[in-house]
C-alpha cells in the first residue's frame, strides 16, 4: 500500500479524522484540524450546543495583566502547579499558561460577549488560588458563551467544501460532518493495535455502525455521574473513557476528584454556585451559635464566623477548592456547625455564601446568570438572603493518560504527534477526559482554558500524525470495521436480553452512594476496602440486571445499562487508586496520612485494565509504558516533570505564598528564570 499523500484518495474518498465529543476541547480540535485542511467526522452524545461545557460559569484564566498587578504567564504557571500540589507535569502547564492570553483574544474575536472595562478592554476578575485578577468572563455563563462561539465556528465549517491540496473542490463533501445523538461504543483497532476509527450507536434508531478515521480524538469530558448527584450534566458518565480504557488505554491519576465547595443541594443535581461569586467578594460563614434560629440575613455581623477568612488570612474565601471543601466539611460534618434548621431540628450540611453586602448593579452585571439559578431552583432571592450551599463532586483531574513532547524552553513542541497522544497509537484525548494539566487539584477557571488549549494542541498533533501515516484507515481491510461493529452489535443484543432481577438505576444509586460518601473529601483505607468490596458486589450483581426497555427506538434503558457497566469499571480505578496512595495531596486527603509524601508518591498513577473473573474487572498499576508512534517506540515513566517549579509545601495562610517563589526556579532551566517572571506582560501563546 502506497503511503497516502493527499487528504483525498485516488478513488476520490475523503480521509477524515474522528473527533468524539463536542464540548470546548472537541470543538477546538475540530477547528484546528479544519484549518490544517483535514476534514472531520464529529460525534456527540447530545447536539454539541448542549454539551456539558455550557455549565461552566465563572470564567477563563489568562494573565493579561489588564489591572497592572504584575501578573504574567509565569506567575500563572507557578500558581497552577502549586495549586495542583505539584502533581502536574510542568511543561504542558507552561505551554497552557503562555498560550492563555492568545486563547482569550481568539475567543473575543469569535464574538464571545466578555465583560468590558470602561476603556473597552476585556475585564478580569479574581478566582481561587491567586491574588491576581486573571479571569476573563461573560457574565456568569462563560462556559455557555465560549461553547456557543466555538459551536458557531464549527457550524461554519459544516458549510465549507472539502478541497484537495490543489484546491479542487470535492463535490458533496463538507469539512465537518456532525453525528449528533450518537453514543461512542469503542475504537476500531487494526491487527497492529492502531486506532483506525470508531464504532458508535445512533440513539434514535439504535443502529450500530463503524466509521473509519485516520486518527481518533476523544474529548468526552469527565465521569462525575459515577458519584450520582454532582455538578455534572447527566451525560457525564465517563463511558467513552472507560470503553477505551477497557481496550488498553492507560488511565492516569483517577483518584483525583475535585469537590467544589459551593453548590446548591438538590434532589436530582447539585447545581454549582460559581467560585466567581467569591471572586467578586462573596463571603462564606456560619453562625457562631450552632443553634442560631434567626434567618441568615438577620444574624448580626458580630455573631458570624467567617471561618475561611479567619484560618487563611492570605487567600481567605479564595483558597483553592480542595482546601475550601475540606474546611466546609469539617465545619458541618465534624463540628456540627452547619446552618440550623428548625423544621428538621438539626444542623444541616449547609453553610452561608453571602453576597448581600455587594452592590446590586454589580451583582447583576457580573453574576446574574448564577444568582438566577439559585433563585429559580431554591426559590429564594440571593440578593437579599445569604445562599445556603454545600460541597459537591465537580471535576476529575485524572483521566486518560496523554503524552507530550517538551520543547527547549520548557513548553510543548508545537505539532509534535506525541502531544495529547494516548498509549494506543492513533488515539488522542483532550479536555477533562485527559489527565494532563491540573495535577492533584485544579484551580478555578483553568478548566475552560485547559479544554481549549488541549484542543489547540491536539489538532496540530493529529494533523502531523495523519500527514505522516504509512497507511490510510481507508486502506485497512473492511473486515476489520465489520468485525468491530459486529462485536458491538452482539454486545448490545446481549444487553437487550438481560432479564435478571436487578434494576440498573438502583444499582447506580448504590454505587453513587458509597462513592460519594467514602471516596471524596476524606478517605480512610479501611473504608476504601469496603468501597472496593462494594464495587466487587455490584459488578457481580450487574450480571443479574434486567433491562427496563427492549424497544427498537430511542432506547435509553439499554443505553444506561451499558453506561452503568462502564461506570463500575472506572469507579474501581478511582477507588483503588485512592486506596493505594498513602499520602495527602490536593484533592486526595487521608486523615491517616496527613502530609504530602514526595519521596514515595510524587508520581503519576497509571492504570491499565485487566479482565477478572465472575464479571469483575481488575486494575493493573504500572510504573511506565511504551507505545508505538509513526514507526518509533516511545517509552515513558510515572515520573512527574518538576523541572520548572520546585515542589514546596502549600501555605495558603500567607498572602502570595502560591506565587512568591517565581524567582526560585531551578537554575538548570534558564529560560524560566526570574527574568522571565518579572516581565510585565507576555501576551501571545506558544512560540
Amino acid at each position: 500500500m502506497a503511503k497516502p499523500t493527499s487528504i483525498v484518495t485516488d478513488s476520490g474518498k475523503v480521509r477524515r479524522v474522528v473527533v468524539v465529543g463536542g464540548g470546548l476541547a472537541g470543538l477546538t480540535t475540530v477547528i484546528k484540524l479544519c484549518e490544517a485542511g483535514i476534514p472531520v467526522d464529529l460525534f456527540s452524545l447530545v447536539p454539541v450546543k448542549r454539551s456539558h461545557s455550557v455549565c461552566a460559569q465563572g470564567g477563563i484564566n489568562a494573565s493579561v495583566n489588564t489591572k497592572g498587578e504584575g501578573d504574567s504567564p509565569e506567575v500563572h504557571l507557578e500558581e497552577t502547579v502549586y495549586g495542583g500540589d505539584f502533581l502536574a507535569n510542568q511543561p504542558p502547564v507552561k505551554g497552557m499558561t503562555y498560550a492563555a492570553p492568545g486563547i482569550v483574544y481568539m475567543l473575543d474575536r469569535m464574538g464571545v460577549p466578555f465583560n468590558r472595562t470602561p476603556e473597552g478592554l476585556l475585564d478580569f476578575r479574581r478566582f481561587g488560588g491567586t491574588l491576581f485578577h486573571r479571569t476573563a468572563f461573560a457574565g456568569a455563563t462563560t462556559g455557555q458563551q465560549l461553547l456557543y462561539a466555538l459551536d458557531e465556528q464549527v457550524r461554519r465549517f459544516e458549510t465549507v467544501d472539502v478541497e484537495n491540496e490543489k484546491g479542487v473542490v470535492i463535490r458533496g463533501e463538507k469539512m465537518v460532518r456532525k453525528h449528533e445523538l450518537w453514543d461512542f461504543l469503542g475504537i476500531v483497532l487494526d491487527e497492529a493495535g492502531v486506532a483506525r476509527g470508531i464504532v458508535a450507536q445512533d440513539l434514535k434508531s439504535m443502529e450500530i455502525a463503524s466509521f473509519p478515521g485516520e486518527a481518533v480524538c476523544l474529548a468526552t469530558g469527565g465521569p462525575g455521574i459515577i458519584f450520582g448527584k454532582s455538578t455534572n450534566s447527566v451525560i457525564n458518565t465517563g463511558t467513552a473513557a472507560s470503553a477505551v480504557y477497557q481496550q488498553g488505554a492507560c488511565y492516569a491519576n483517577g483518584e483525583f476528584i475535585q469537590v467544589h465547595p459551593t453548590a446548591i443541594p438538590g434532589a436530582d443535581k447539585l447545581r454549582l454556585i460559581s467560585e466567581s461569586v467569591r471572586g467578586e467578594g462573596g463571603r462564606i460563614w456560619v453562625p457562631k451559635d450552632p443553634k442560631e434560629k434567626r434567618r441568615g440575613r438577620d444574624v448580626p455581623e458580630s455573631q458570624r464566623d467567617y471561618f475561611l477568612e479567619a484560618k487563611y488570612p492570605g487567600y481567605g474565601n479564595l483558597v483553592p477548592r480542595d482546601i475550601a471543601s475540606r474546611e466546609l466539611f469539617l465545619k458541618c460534618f465534624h463540628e456540627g456547625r452547619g446552618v440550623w434548621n428548625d423544621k428538621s431540628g438539626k444542623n444541616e450540611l449547609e453553610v452561608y455564601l453571602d453576597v448581600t453586602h455587594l452592590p446590586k448593579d454589580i451583582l447583576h452585571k457580573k453574576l446574574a446568570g448564577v444568582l438566577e439559578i439559585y433563585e429559580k431552583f431554591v426559590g429564594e432571592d440571593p440578593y437579599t438572603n445569604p445562599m445556603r450551599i454545600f460541597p459537591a463532586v465537580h471535576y476529575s483531574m485524572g483521566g486518560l493518560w496523554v503524552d507530550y513532547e517538551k520543547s527547549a524552553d520548557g513548553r510543548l513542541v508545537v505539532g509534535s504527534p506525541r502531544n495529547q497522544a494516548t498509549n494506543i497509537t492513533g488515539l488522542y484525548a483532550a479536555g477533562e477526559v485527559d489527565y494532563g494539566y491540573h495535577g492533584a487539584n485544579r484551580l478555578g477557571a483553568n478548566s475552560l482554558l485547559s479544554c481549549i488549549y488541549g484542543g489547540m494542541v491536539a489538532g496540530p498533533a493529529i494533523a502531523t500524525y495523519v500527514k505522516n501515516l504509512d497507511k490510510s484507515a481507508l486502506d485497512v481491510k473492511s473486515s476489520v470495521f465489520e468485525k468491530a461493529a459486529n462485536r458491538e452489535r452482539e454486545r448490545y443484543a446481549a444487553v437487550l436480553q438481560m432479564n435478571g432481577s436487578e434494576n440498573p438505576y438502583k444499582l447506580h444509586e448504590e454505587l453513587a452512594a458509597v462513592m460519594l460518601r467514602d471516596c471524596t473529601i476524606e478517605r480512610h483505607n479501611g473504608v476504601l476496602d469496603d468501597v472496593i468490596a462494594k464495587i466487587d458486589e455490584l459488578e457481580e450483581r450487574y450480571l443479574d440486571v434486567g433491562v427496563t426497555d427492549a424497544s427498537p427506538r430511542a432506547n435509553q434503558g439499554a443505553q444506561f445499562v451499558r453506561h452503568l457497566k462502564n461506570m463500575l469499571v472506572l469507579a474501581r480505578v478511582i477507588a483503588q487508586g485512592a486506596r493505594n496512595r498513602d499520602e495527602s495531596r490536593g484533592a486526595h486527603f487521608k486523615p491517616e496520612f496527613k502530609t504530602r509524601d514526595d519521596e514515595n508518591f510524587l508520581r503519576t498513577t497509571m492504570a491499565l485494565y485487566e479482565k477478572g473473573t465472575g464479571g469483575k474487572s481488575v486494575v493493573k498499576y504500572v510504573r511506565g509504558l511504551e507505545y508505538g508512534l509513526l514507526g518509533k517506540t516511545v517509552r515513558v515513566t510515572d515520573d512527574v516533570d518538576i523541572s520548572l517549579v520546585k515542589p514546596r509545601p502549600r501555605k495558603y495562610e500567607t498572602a502570595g505564598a502560591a506565587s512568591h517563589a517565581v524567582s526560585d526556579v531551578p537554575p538548570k532551566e534558564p529560560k524560566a528564570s526570574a527574568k522571565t517572571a518579572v516581565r510585565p506582560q507576555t501576551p501571545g501563546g506558544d512560540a
Partner: protein
Amino acid sequence: MAEKKKIRLKVLRQDGPEERGTRRWEEFDVPWHPQMNVISALMEIQKDPRTADGTKTVPVVWEASCLEEVCGSCTMLVNGKVRQACSALIDQISPDGQPITLAPMSKFPLVRDLIVDRSRMFDDLKRVKAWVQLDGSHELGPGPRQSPENQEEAYPLSRCMTCGCCMEACPQINDRSSFVGPHAISLVRLYNLHPSGKMHAAERLETLMGPGGVQDCGKAQNCVEVCPKEIPLVDSIAVVSRQVTKQMLFGWLLT
C-alpha cells in the same frame, strides 16, 4: 407518620413517529422529595417502571443534560406550557398535589415519548450564517475594543439555548411554513452587533429576505412570553426587520 406523599404524573407517550396507534396517556405515582423537579420525578419512574394502577411498563424517555436550564435539552410541555422540565419545580407547579401533565413539543417531528427532533433549528443557524467570519484561530492579537454598553446589549442575546420554546409558541411555525423563527432572527441581530461580525451583516440580512424570512413574523409576540432566558425577541425582530428593509432599499448603494 402519614403515608408518603406522592406526585401524579400524566405523560403523553408514543413509541415512534410512525406508531400513531401507540399514542396514549399513562399515569404514574412517584414519591415526593423536597426540591423535586419534573426531571427527578421522571427519574423515579426509571427505578420503578409501573403505572399508577400497578401495571408494568417501560420507563418514559426524555432528553436532558445540564439540569440547570442552560443547555436547552429538556424542553417539553409541562401542564400545557412550553418550558424546560428541569426548572419546573414540583412544589411550584403542583402546590396542592394536582396531577402534572407532560407532553412533547408539537412543532417538531416526534422521536419517541417526550423526545422530538429539533435539528431544523440548527439548520436555521446555518441558513442565517450565525457566526463571525474568522480569519483563523491562530494568534492575531486582541479583538476589537467594545464598549460596556455594546456588551450589555449583546450578552442577553447570546444566551439563546436553541431550546425551541419560541418555535413551539409561534403561530407562524407549522408544517406549511419555512419561517426561520425568532431564535435565528435574534442571533442575526447579535452577529450584526459585533464589530467584525458587522462587516458581513448584509450576507445575513439577505438570508432573511423573502419567504421564511423576517417578514413572515405575525407579531403575535408569544415568543418573548415563553423565552426562559428572557431574551428580547420581539425587539430583535423589530431591529432586524428595520435592517432588512434598509438593506433591501439601499443595499445596492452600500455595497
